[in-house]
């Protein structure tokens, strides 16, 4: 039985699905639920992610069902809403997303989508009531719906494999506040070794990108939430996958790319030249930071609160390259059991001889207790942890959702550039704290 949660930061399945649809250029969500569902998402997700207003801006098409529809069913209301959405709102793809009320009433959402398709409208649907889970489940449900239903729209199917094309999975838009920047950097790295990234979300990524999904020769997965789409594509199209449950930050990006080069049999000389250049630049940045690093006492025990892939990726860089000690790592995205053990093994022993506590919870009160008890010298987390860092009197950096006080557009922490960005952000937080303490 799911437990109650204080200040849940994982929203719901409907909101996760909305984030997916809203992050694809030309895709239009049609919510079939009560009026407030879309606004809950706007306040509770978009507003706490300043700079993430979806294409065209809020609010979204929504059937806004009333008491009558709860009692007698809302199918006809959805029919009317869908028809008028196609007439009013420009789109290449319309995605009906059902909410709790209409799922409980039992509206036949697939039948309505089918009716729409019979009118030659590009309509798909996903059953995404909030009671089915958090935004991560919503991401999976919406991605699955698109992969499975796009071929039904009469749009051309797979035209064989494209040897260089790589689908990137596992970055949940909006729930990862750095989703655009992280995807852009992964795309840049893939291009650097001669591949063609299929990023699927963000500016310039439209329905056409999704039509190419079956043609890809590989799925690159950078969080556990990408496992399911990758498996689905393996089953349907025989696409192999390379799966990581960690965001590659700094040196880990090299490891990821070398695995890719090996797996896809890429030109090793060209790839290696690219990698060496990237590594050299990061090392030069590190050298440039050295004086400040020693003077301001960067070496600290830290607490990090965030999603599984982010915690794994960031702490790997902070412990493995920057010489910090991970004291307490709190994983908030409820990853499935099959990866938990692996995560704990991987994260608990990053610094030999130093015990790292790894906890799984999304409850604000529990997280506060964990971080306070750990007495770290640095806190990285969401804006919900600002108060805790303040009580501890230590530097604080907002890195995970919600990020109420940061504007994030193209910033990311993935890859080599992301590692440098993380150094800038974290270094600035430590330095301003250091200077404030000195005065």
């Amino acid at each position: 039985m799911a437990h109650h949660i204080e200040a849940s930061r994982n929203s719901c399945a409907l909101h996760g699905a909305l984030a997916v649809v809203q992050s694809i250029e030309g895709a239009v969500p049609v919510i079939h639920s009560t009026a407030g569902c879309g606004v809950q998402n706007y306040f509770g997700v978009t507003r706490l992610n300043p700079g993430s207003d979806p294409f065209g801006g809020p609010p979204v098409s929504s059937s806004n069902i009333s008491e009558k529809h709860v009692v007698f069913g809302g199918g006809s209301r959805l029919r009317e809403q869908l028809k008028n959405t196609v007439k009013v709102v420009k789109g290449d793809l319309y995605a009906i997303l059902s909410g709790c009320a209409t799922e409980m009433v039992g509206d036949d959402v697939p039948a309505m989508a089918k009716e729409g398709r019979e009118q030659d409208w590009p309509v798909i649907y996903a059953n995404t009531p909030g009671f089915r889970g958090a935004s991560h489940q919503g991401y999976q449900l919406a991605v699955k719906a698109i992969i499975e239903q796009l071929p039904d729209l009469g749009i051309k199917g797979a035209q064989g494999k494209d040897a260089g094309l790589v689908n990137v999975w596992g970055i949940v838009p909006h729930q990862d506040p750095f989703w655009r920047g992280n995807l852009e950097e992964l795309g840049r790295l893939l291009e650097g070794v001669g591949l063609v990234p299929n990023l699927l979300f963000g500016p310039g990524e439209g329905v056409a990108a999704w039509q190419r999904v079956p043609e890809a020769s590989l799925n690159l997965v950078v969080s556990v939430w990408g496992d399911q789409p990758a498996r689905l594509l393996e089953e349907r199209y025989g696409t192999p996958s390379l799966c990581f449950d960690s965001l590659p930050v700094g040196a880990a990006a090299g490891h990821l790319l070398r695995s890719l080069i090996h797996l896809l049999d890429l030109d090793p000389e060209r790839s290696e030249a690219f990698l060496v250049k990237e590594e050299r630049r990061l090392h030069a940045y590190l050298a440039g930071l050295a004086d400040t690093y020693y003077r301001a006492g960067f070496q600290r025990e830290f607490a990090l609160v965030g999603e599984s892939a982010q915690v794994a990726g960031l702490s790997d860089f902070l412990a493995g390259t920057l010489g910090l000690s991970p004291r307490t790592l709190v994983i908030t995205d409820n990853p499935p059991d099959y990866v938990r053990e692996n995560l704990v093994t991987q994260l608990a022993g990053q610094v030999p001889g130093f015990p790292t506590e790894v906890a799984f919870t999304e409850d604000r009160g529990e997280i506060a207790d964990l971080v306070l008890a750990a007495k770290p010298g640095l806190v990285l987390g969401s804006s919900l942890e600002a108060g805790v860092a303040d009580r501890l009197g230590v530097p604080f950096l907002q890195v995970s959702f919600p990020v109420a006080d940061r504007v994030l557009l193209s910033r990311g922490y993935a890859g080599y550039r992301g590692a440098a960005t993380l150094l800038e952000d974290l270094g600035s937080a430590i330095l301003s704290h250091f200077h404030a303490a000195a005065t």
Partner: protein
Amino acid sequence: MSILKAKAPRSREKRLDTMNAWQGSATAVAAELAGEATVQRIRTFSQSSQDDLLYALQLLAGIRNSVTVVHAPRGCAAAGLYFQAREPSGRLIVTNLDERDTIMGADLKLRRAVTALHHRYHPEVVFIVSSPVVAINNDDIQSVVEELHEELELAIVPVYVTGFASRNAVTGYDATLHALLKYLGGPRKAREANNRVNLLAVAEHRPDLSEAVRLLSALGVELNVLPDGAGAGTFRDATSACFSIPLDQDTEDYLGVSLRDEYEVPYIEAPRPVGLGATGRWLAAVGAALGLEEKARFLHEQESIAARVELAGFSLQGVRVYLGLATATAFGVLELVQEFGGEVVGITVSHLDQLHRRRLEELSVRHPDLQIHVADGQPFEEVSILKRLTPDLYLGDSAHLGQLGRLGGAVVSLEDAPILGYRGLVSLAGRISLALRNPSFGAALARTSPPYHDAWYRRSPNWHIKQEVK
């Protein structure tokens, strides 16, 4: 019978003929509301909009030392994160109903949550907020409230909202205020008024509230501010106040009227203090109630002079303005714009009902053709109206200003900007001047692809507003 005996108030539609879909002239809407029965209209295409659950969360976020338990699947508490980030007064919990709970019910889960939070945080009061899932399932919140109230000796207040029973989100304020007074107001008693004044404030910005408090304190009034920033005891205290004064009659009407009808606390009618004239009338209403007419008049004169100095010749002469605001604010800002010589070419308001009848009748005399659009979160209609009217300036409080900014006019958000009293006026004038001076951001927005088909703009903006077929 006491209205507080009911589990929840009747919806705004039923109580006050409230409508949320309309477009037409001031004359037509005044006639509609004056008629025998107001015809409810619905939309055949709609965009997401606020609901009673969201308004309940927003109001409860301002109550001190409280825990709010949203009895719902996890997404129904999402917006609470945002309200908390702005006004971190209490704790927010969601019972996180899953698929099984929607079938089997989840009373036990609610009971466990309330008990655990009581032991963890020792709040003065726990609110239980219902939701669409709970309303459809008819989960028994009431027996949990009664049993745990005894068992834990804790004030527990159930707020019954549904997300679908009313089309007007403002019903959520009514439902919450009803519950607050019902459970925290205490029993009726012989009237023994103290000299405190209830300042009614629902979801006001902090600077706006400070301005109202500053002005009333200057009159020497002792205040009991509620529900914003109130604690559980404030509601009991409110029942002995000498009278109540509203900042926004739309949102506070239910509280003011209930305090009057249940506890004999007089409710002073006063306009929203927006702009010089209305702020003066608001102060005069308080002055009259306290026998401090002279003092109130003097304060208004002094403050007006000081404000005019700061405004330094601010003028809206020749500026065509469109307003998209919560209703009481819209009427207030309309007067403010006119005070400074501007022309209001149309307004979009969140709702209209019997509380606005007099105001609409006045408008229909002075500006019979003024276009009035009633909508909460329907930018597709607003964009269409604005394309026709091409105002120079848009003043609004919605989340969709980005869609309007791209049309080329200056845009000022009043959602988080102070507007009340003299200081609010000076602050707003400053923002308006900045917006009118440099429209480059809107021009940049216009370079992105617009969300609606051109064909939509060829329809009349009220194309999708139809009379409801019962």
